[in-house]
């Protein structure tokens, strides 16, 4: 699936990947790929700006650590991010339900 098709949903997807616990960037991208069974295979360079945008919005927070001699940034969901994720889920359910009613199998 191309990045353009995910426009508008990427934020919600990233928040969902952090729901289970803190992850660093590479792990987030791999989790997106795995849980979507390869449908969401985004260029890594587009995911990191989105993560930083979410951090500036206060929906996620990051911490630095040193792993194998290099700095690693790990992201975690904030309380505001959790609320935003719930909102994204509600919005998606409404949207998906509406699309399905139009594009679903004909009666």
């Amino acid at each position, binding site marked *: 699936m191309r990045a353009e098709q995910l426009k508008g949903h990427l934020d919600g997807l990233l928040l969902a990947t952090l729901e289970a616990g803190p992850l*660093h*960037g*590479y792990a987030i991208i791999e989790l997106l790929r795995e849980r979507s069974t390869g449908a969401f295979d985004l*260029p*890594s*360079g*587009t995911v*990191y*700006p*989105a993560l*930083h*945008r979410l951090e*500036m919005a206060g929906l996620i927070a990051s911490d630095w650590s040193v*792993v*194998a001699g*290099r*700095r*690693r*940034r790990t992201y975690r969901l904030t309380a505001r991010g959790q609320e935003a994720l719930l909102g994204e889920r509600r919005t998606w359910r409404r949207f998906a339900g509406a699309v399905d009613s139009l594009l679903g199998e004909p009666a």
Partner: protein
Amino acid sequence: MIETARLDRHLRELERRLRGLEAPQDVIDEARDHLLEATAAYMCGGLDRGAALDRALSEFGTPRRVAAGFLGARCVQESRRLWRDSWRLGLISSVPAFTAWLLLPALAAGTLDPVNMPGLAAAEWAGRLDAAALAAVALLARVPYPRLRERWLLPVPFLLAALGWFITLDGAVASGFFAERAATALDAAPALPGALALGALGGATAWLLVRPQRTSALVWNTLTWR
């Protein structure tokens, strides 16, 4: 190693394209961590080091594309903050000076001779500078920040306004305005509301020119220093 040199070259190019971004080293360090981890994962999958790094770099994206993503995301927010601070400071410093420019002749008409008032000419120039500052803020605020390559241009409206404010104060002191203020206060009182109202109108006009759809939010942010 050739691969390390290639990785460093890629990251140096990314760093060059991120010039002007806040904390670019954080972005570089994160990119390095990602690329090294991706390379290691591909090597575990059977690729040799060179091919694994090729795939990791290709997947990550070119420095131009990655930098555009960061600059687009951060500059939208940073530009709003910078423009908001720039015009806010410019207005805060220029509206009082603009008001003083209008106020001085009104006060001078009472007991001071406006023709011989030494500070009046300076105050008029201060007013013109402040008007230029307000116009500059209004015009420059329309320019999208990513196109504004030189950050040194940002403080120009504020500096113009600050210069106007300084000249106004200097002219007022030189003219004996403050020394005469006590004597002329009662005479000046009727002119005060009109002068202040005109100054507020000038400020409100500048606000509408800069950000008409968010004027109320900006007023609140200015008052609460957010």
